[in-house]
């Protein structure tokens, strides 16, 4: 177990120099182009400074020059591993400003897409976390299952990763006839693989020793920094936007909020964050099962509700529960076809800011584990 060490006591009076190591933008485990400037005392981390901006694509400026419908593909590309969840807060915000409420069937389909993407995103999170710890095989197993989800979404929207499916006022197109059978197949497969991953990775003693008591995030620190999503819930705070501020049909669905409880270490360590994601996958499956029943088989024209001219007026902050946390959009419109300002509040950006606080005193290998457990996607941090 790694305890937080007071370095000056360990080294006594010998004059030494801290080593500045650059975990550079190109690195096998920084989950994208993130640069960490790490100050090391031997193997122990003294300070960490994340340097971001390598993937900045001027999303907010572009959003001022395109109409609302044209902004939706750009919103997709923020967190590219779960596009449906990105589109949701933006679309819901504009719909609220315009006063549109789509039918329950459309809302159920949106919920299913969002939960499928939540499973896909958590699969990537667990897979890359395992790879950071040195286990290469769970990565392949989880990606094999993620392929099934991507095939279903490809049949639904035509595209594997960046869907542009949820539109303001409706959807792009209706579901295909075999949608529900495919969903049942996915539910079965994901349950089996999660069982396997638990045996192979999560309960493995070596993995537990690597992750338990590493990067402990106390709940008050998490709330002060503004963390959200699995990071917050793993520290013991049962806050989920789907319950606290329900949108779509989440208030009609029955699911648990997964909270970390220090099963193999302290509450709020890296193992807990990983475990919360595994539990959330199971809850997403439950939601999909319930939402499937709410879709009547008769098809409807999902494009009927899309208004001809989208020109909302006013300001609104709309938020939704992304797999990584609370994704919010502050939309300012003045009655014209193009928004005045769209500001994206990215959950990973806020979650990443907590790294200097929780990684002091741990070893360098632990820093990689902590970074992996936060689950960042640089597209969202840099927008």
């Amino acid at each position, binding site marked *: 177990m790694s305890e937080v060490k007071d370095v000056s006591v360990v080294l006594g009076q010998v004059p030494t120099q801290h080593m500045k190591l650059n975990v550079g933008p190109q690195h096998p485990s920084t989950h994208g182009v993130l640069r960490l400037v790490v100050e090391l005392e031997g193997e122990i981390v003294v300070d960490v400074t994340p340097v971001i901006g390598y993937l900045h694509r001027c999303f907010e400026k572009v959003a001022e020059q*395109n109409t609302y*419908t*044209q*902004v939706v*593909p*750009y919103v997709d590309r923020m967190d590219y591993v779960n596009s449906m969840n990105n589109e949701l807060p933006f679309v819901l915000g504009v719909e609220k400003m315009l006063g549109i409420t789509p039918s329950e069937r459309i809302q159920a389909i949106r919920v299913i897409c969002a939960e499928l993407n939540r499973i896909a995103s958590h699969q990537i999170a667990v897979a890359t976390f395992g790879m950071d710890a040195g286990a290469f*095989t769970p990565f392949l*197993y989880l990606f*094999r299952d993620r*392929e099934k989800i991507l095939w279903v979404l*490809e*049949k639904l*929207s*035509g*595209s594997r990763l*960046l869907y*542009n499916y949820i539109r303001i006022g409706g959807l*792009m*197109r209706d579901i295909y006839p075999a949608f529900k059978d495919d969903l049942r197949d996915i539910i079965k497969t994901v349950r089996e693989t999660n069982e*396997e991953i638990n*045996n*192979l*990775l999560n*309960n*493995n*003693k*070596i993995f537990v020793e690597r992750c338990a008591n590493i990067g402990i995030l106390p709940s008050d620190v998490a709330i002060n920094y503004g963390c959200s999503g699995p990071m917050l819930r793993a520290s013991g705070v049962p806050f989920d936007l789907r319950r606290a501020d329900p949108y779509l049909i989440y208030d009609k669905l029955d699911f648990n909020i997964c909270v970390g409880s220090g099963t193999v270490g302290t509450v709020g360590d890296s193992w807990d964050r990983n475990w919360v994601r595994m539990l959330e996958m199971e809850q997403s499956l439950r939601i999909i099962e319930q939402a499937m029943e709410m879709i009547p088989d008769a098809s409807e024209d999902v494009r009927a509700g899309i208004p001809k001219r989208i020109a909302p007026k006013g300001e609104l902050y709309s938020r939704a529960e992304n797999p990584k946390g609370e994704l919010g959009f502050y939309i300012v419109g003045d009655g014209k076809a193009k928004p005045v300002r769209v500001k994206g509040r990215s959950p990973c950006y806020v979650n990443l800011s907590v790294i200097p606080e929780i990684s002091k005193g741990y070893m360098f290998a632990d820093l990689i584990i902590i970074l992996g457990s936060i689950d960042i996607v640089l597209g969202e941090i840099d927008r």
Partner: protein
Amino acid sequence: MENQNKIKRYFEGIWTGVYTVLVGMAITWKHLWGHKVTMQYPDKFDPLKTGFIPEFARNRLFVDMDKCIGCAICQKDCPIDCIEIETIRASKEDPEAVFPSGKRMSLWVSKFDIDFAKCMCCNLCTENCPEDCIYMTREFEFSDYDRMKLLYHFSKMTPEKIAEKQKIAEEEKAKKAAAPKQAPAAGQKPDNPKTE
């Protein structure tokens, strides 16, 4: 008591260590001899023919120029501005200005360029087309060695034809500009060749 706890935890740690390693090895052993999911593309697997790419796939755009009326709604809808359309006003008495379906053509589409290096396959251009002539196909293997080859020119008009139609359009415009001078003076309808 505390020491006994420590000793117990020590041996438990060793036992869990060995046991979970063996459980993990059993899982990988099972997968070692199990079913493999690789699809050997391109040697033994063709995604287009086997229906692996679904019917509605957003891969490469295609424009049916026999139907395009040159309204440029797709150009307006594209978030990236990768479509470039230039039109020439078709003269009303031009016998060639007819679609194959028989409808009257009001605009010649002299340039319809789509830059696939920029296209992000968002499908916004296809949704508002009034004639359904621009649509996304399932074709995904269209990469090339030269970036300029990714600029697709869909318009079928040759430069001579474009020049010819432009001349006709300019002549008509000049006639229309000259015509209002005559109408108030004579108070009668100008000679309209179409009515003859």
